[in-house]
């Protein structure tokens, strides 16, 4: 019944035919149908080949044509090797801290009442949607010499966390870690929460009726069952950290580079395509190894598609074994020690503690979004906090500067093109994944291929597209840039629409057919309207992806038509004037508008779902 509609042919006219002829028609028809499904993945394949595969191959070519000495020179000895080791180290640190804080935050989200949960969720979701560049710029204010946190500098210096006591908190490893954790925490919390919120709230209490205390119940029940979410979160955080560029570049010291910064220098400053390519290959191999390792725990593509929760649960249960039964203590000294330690810990008011800590973390997450508001209204000619007086001076300045306005226009143009492309390419792919008469294996391959671009570090994409587009003469072409950006929007489009299609009740389509609607008409009158909220959600995500993207734009955009992120990035590296706070607020405003629309769509989606239950 599942496949009834796609099996339904276009009108077959001759009602009575001899069996032979009927078979022939069926075969012909079947072939025609698979051709239509092939058509659905053609645009995506072309895009993938042009914007991802060809650049990667072209880049890989550098790795093959140069000798092993060149590889050794770039990756095997300083500064390459030290930078590589440092990058991995920083990524490990960020992942560990995010893991610790993320569990706390997710636990608080699950335990909170509806209103606190909404607040905590907003505090993690709004930053998640907001441009990394904007948030990093905000940290430059927060940690800067005249920033609100500069009072902490003596204390932090005494603790040995920052190298000097008079330069503010910026341009050191500490600032990088604070900034990166701030950027990454939502990416850990969201998948973890999505798994944890699906666990039955009765599980931990059940364990406690069997003799486990609170602490034991957490470690034996909640932790193992939510491990898949944590694994997915950790994969994302770790791989993104490896390729992170904006935050270390703006907050870190010049002698403390990470690999992506080094790549940008080789690529952009020295036009050393070979070294940049070798570094990119190294980075992507590193990421591939990490993803493969984490996949042992949990295939992350499962998390983005409906039905993952169930599987997560099943796996978790297998892993945790007989988690609910607390074994009698056999008097081994360490068991007694652990037991009494956990009994002692269990006395603490964990509910209150997690909630308070989560709120503190929430403030930490929201701080970069809030600081730019007062700063943008400063009347001072330079960045200071708190401003000595307020005015619209910087708004006037930004709005009066044709440079900013053209950039905004350029950004909107690129983002609009990229969004249209994401829609045109992503929608058929989503239908293919959800409905094509192909095996499960083919479905997952198509899914993985279409979300591949978000797994590749952006700086690698930037390097690849740059060397390749330079070759084919597409650098500076707005369509080429939009095509590259669309590969970042397509994953969102595909994931949202596929999950809507999984929930879709195909009997509504069947009903329409029996009521006299042809297949195309059913699609227009029933399928599309019911998918509209999901499609619009995908559109918004795709738009934001392009609107916020910096590095691909940096290498591909024509120098005469920089996008808003490019202009802001260039301005940040020159001086951090309050004008940037104004621009930041434009980004944040966009994010909030998008968020509002998302909420409206998710409400309609829920209503539609309820109705077709």
């Amino acid at each position, binding site marked *: *019944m599942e496949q009834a509609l796609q099996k*339904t042919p276009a009108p077959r006219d001759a*009602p009575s035919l001899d069996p032979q002829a009927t078979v022939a028609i069926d075969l012909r028809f079947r072939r025609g149908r698979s051709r239509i499904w092939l058509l659905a993945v053609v645009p995506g394949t072309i895009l993938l080949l042009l914007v991802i595969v060809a650049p990667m191959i072209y880049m890989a070519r550098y790795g093959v044509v140069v000798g092993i000495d060149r590889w050794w020179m770039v990756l095997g000895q300083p500064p390459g090797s030290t930078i590589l080791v440092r990058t991995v180290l920083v990524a490990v640190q960020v992942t560990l801290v995010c893991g610790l804080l993320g569990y706390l935050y997710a636990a608080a989200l699950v335990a909170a009442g509806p209103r606190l949960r909404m607040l905590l969720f907003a505090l993690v979701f709004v930053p998640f949607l907001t441009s990394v560049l904007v948030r990093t710029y905000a940290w430059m204010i927060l940690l800067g010499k005249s920033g609100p946190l500069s009072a902490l500098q003596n204390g932090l210096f005494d603790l040995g966390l920052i190298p000097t006591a008079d330069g503010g908190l910026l341009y050191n490893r500490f600032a990088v870690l604070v900034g990166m954790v701030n950027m990454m925490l939502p990416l850990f919390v969201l998948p973890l929460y999505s798994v944890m919120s699906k666990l039955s709230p009765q599980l931990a209490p059940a364990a406690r009726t069997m003799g486990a205390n609170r602490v034991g119940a957490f470690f034996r029940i909640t932790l193992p069952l939510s491990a898949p979410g944590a694994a997915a979160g950790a994969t994302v955080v770790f791989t993104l950290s490896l390729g992170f560029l904006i935050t270390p570049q703006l907050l870190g010291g010049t002698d403390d580079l990470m690999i992506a910064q080094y790549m940008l220098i080789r690529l952009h400053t020295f036009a050393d395509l070979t070294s940049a390519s070798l570094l990119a290959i190294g980075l992507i191999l590193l990421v591939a190894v990490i993803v493969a390792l984490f996949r042992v725990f949990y295939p992350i593509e499962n998390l983005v598609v409906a039905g993952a929760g169930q599987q997560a649960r099943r796996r978790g249960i297998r892993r945790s074994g007989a988690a609910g039964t607390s074994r009698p203590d056999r008097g081994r000294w360490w068991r007694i020690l652990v037991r009494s330690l956990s009994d002692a810990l269990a006395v603490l008011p964990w509910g209150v503690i997690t909630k308070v800590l989560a709120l503190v973390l929430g403030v930490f997450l929201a701080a970069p979004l809030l600081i730019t508001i007062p700063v943008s209204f400063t009347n001072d000619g330079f960045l200071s906090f708190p401003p000595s007086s307020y005015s619209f001076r910087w708004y006037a300045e930004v709005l009066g500067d044709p440079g900013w306005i053209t950039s905004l226009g350029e950004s909107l143009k690129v983002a609009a093109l990229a969004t249209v492309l994401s829609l045109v390419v992503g929608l058929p792919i989503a239908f293919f994944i959800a409905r094509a008469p192909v095996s499960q294996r083919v479905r997952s391959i198509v899914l993985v291929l279409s979300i591949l671009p978000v797994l590749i570090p952006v700086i690698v994409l930037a390097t690849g597209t740059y060397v390749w587009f330079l070759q084919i003469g597409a650098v500076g072409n707005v369509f080429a840039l939009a095509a590259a950006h669309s590969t970042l929007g397509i994953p969102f489009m595909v994931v949202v629409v596929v999950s809507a299609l999984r929930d879709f009740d195909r009997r509504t389509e069947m009903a329409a*057919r*029996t*009521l006299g*609607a042809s*297949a195309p008409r059913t699609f227009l009158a029933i399928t599309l309207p019911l998918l509209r909220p999901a499609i619009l959600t995908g559109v918004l995500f795709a738009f934001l992806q392009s609107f916020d993207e910096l590095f691909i734009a940096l290498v591909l955009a024509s120098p005469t038509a920089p996008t808003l992120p490019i202009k802001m990035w260039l301005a940040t590296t020159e001086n951090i004037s309050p004008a940037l706070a104004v621009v930041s607020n434009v980004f944040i405003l966009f994010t909030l508008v998008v968020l509002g629309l998302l909420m409206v769509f998710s409400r309609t989606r829920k209503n539609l779902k309820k109705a*077709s239950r």
Partner: protein
Amino acid sequence: MTETVNQLEVSALVKRFGDRTVVDDLAFAIGKGEFFTLLGPSGCGKSTTLMMIAGLESPDAGTIRLRGDDVTRLPPERRRIGVVFQNYALFPHMSIVDNVAFGLRMHGQGKRAARAAAEEMLDVVELTDLHRLPAQLSGGQMQRVALARALVTDPDLLLMDEPLSALDRRLRQTMQFELRRLQAKLGTTVLYVTHDQEEALVLSDRIAVMNGGRFEQVAPPAEVYTQPVSAFVAGFLGESNQLRVRLAEGEAPDGVVRLAPESVGGRTLLARRPVEAFDEGLLVVRPECMRIASGDAARAAGAEGLPATVDDVTFLGDHLRVGLLLEDGTAWTAQLPPGAAAPTVGSSVRVEWDVQDAAYLATAPQQARR
């Protein structure tokens, strides 16, 4: 169209999923205005049959004729049928009236005319407040909308797939009678699918009892109930007492066979003669055809009986239910009128029935009988 043309005619219909044959060589015909029900356990292929007739699933072999025309290869939108789906499948983004008007619009009617006709049909199914969305309706109301939507285009055939299964028992009974009333009023031909025997008995002109993709018996409700042709049919409709038997030596009156129970030695029992003869099968007697006599009472004329022990006695308001154990441990039940004297638990009795109420049925499914 002449009078003799059937509204629906299905012949040699086959559907396979992989190497499983889900619908196995089905053939049946439904006359104009008839209420025909496919009754069978879940998974026996009822929905698949219905979907093929609707054109939403393509058969592997066989033909489907609607009013004499071969529609086997026709897409669903050109078959002039109405379908009521199990979960109603209302369009969640359209108001009630737009849901009902949809089919008319697809058949080329103007917006206003379609709406007017839709409102009229919604009036027939007694629905008001037509601009609500489906999400705002109760189960019974959704059911009515689905019915109105399927009927408004005046289809040649109305297909219904377990339309009442999502409703609670009370509402289901109300809807059954309403469905019957509506069908009689509009003269619609209905092919109905259910796994609920009571529903099938109440609604149908004829019932096809389905098992494993085949029909076991096609007959009016009373006949299916009183003269089941197979143990499956007897077991599926109502309760029945069964005993393994084989054909015995010795002469028997006309229309009757002599049977030897396999595990209750030393006696033979008479039962109605089946259409085709076979060597072993089941003796089947309905609980309400049973009487209970004291262990040493003489056998009544034309009656058969076996010794049994009373296991339990339950009063159920409109009848008395007596659990019995035969000599070989087989559990039977007898259903006595409410005023009957209750036998003592543990006492030895004789359970009796008329030969005409005892059927001799094959265990393996027999070929369907028209």
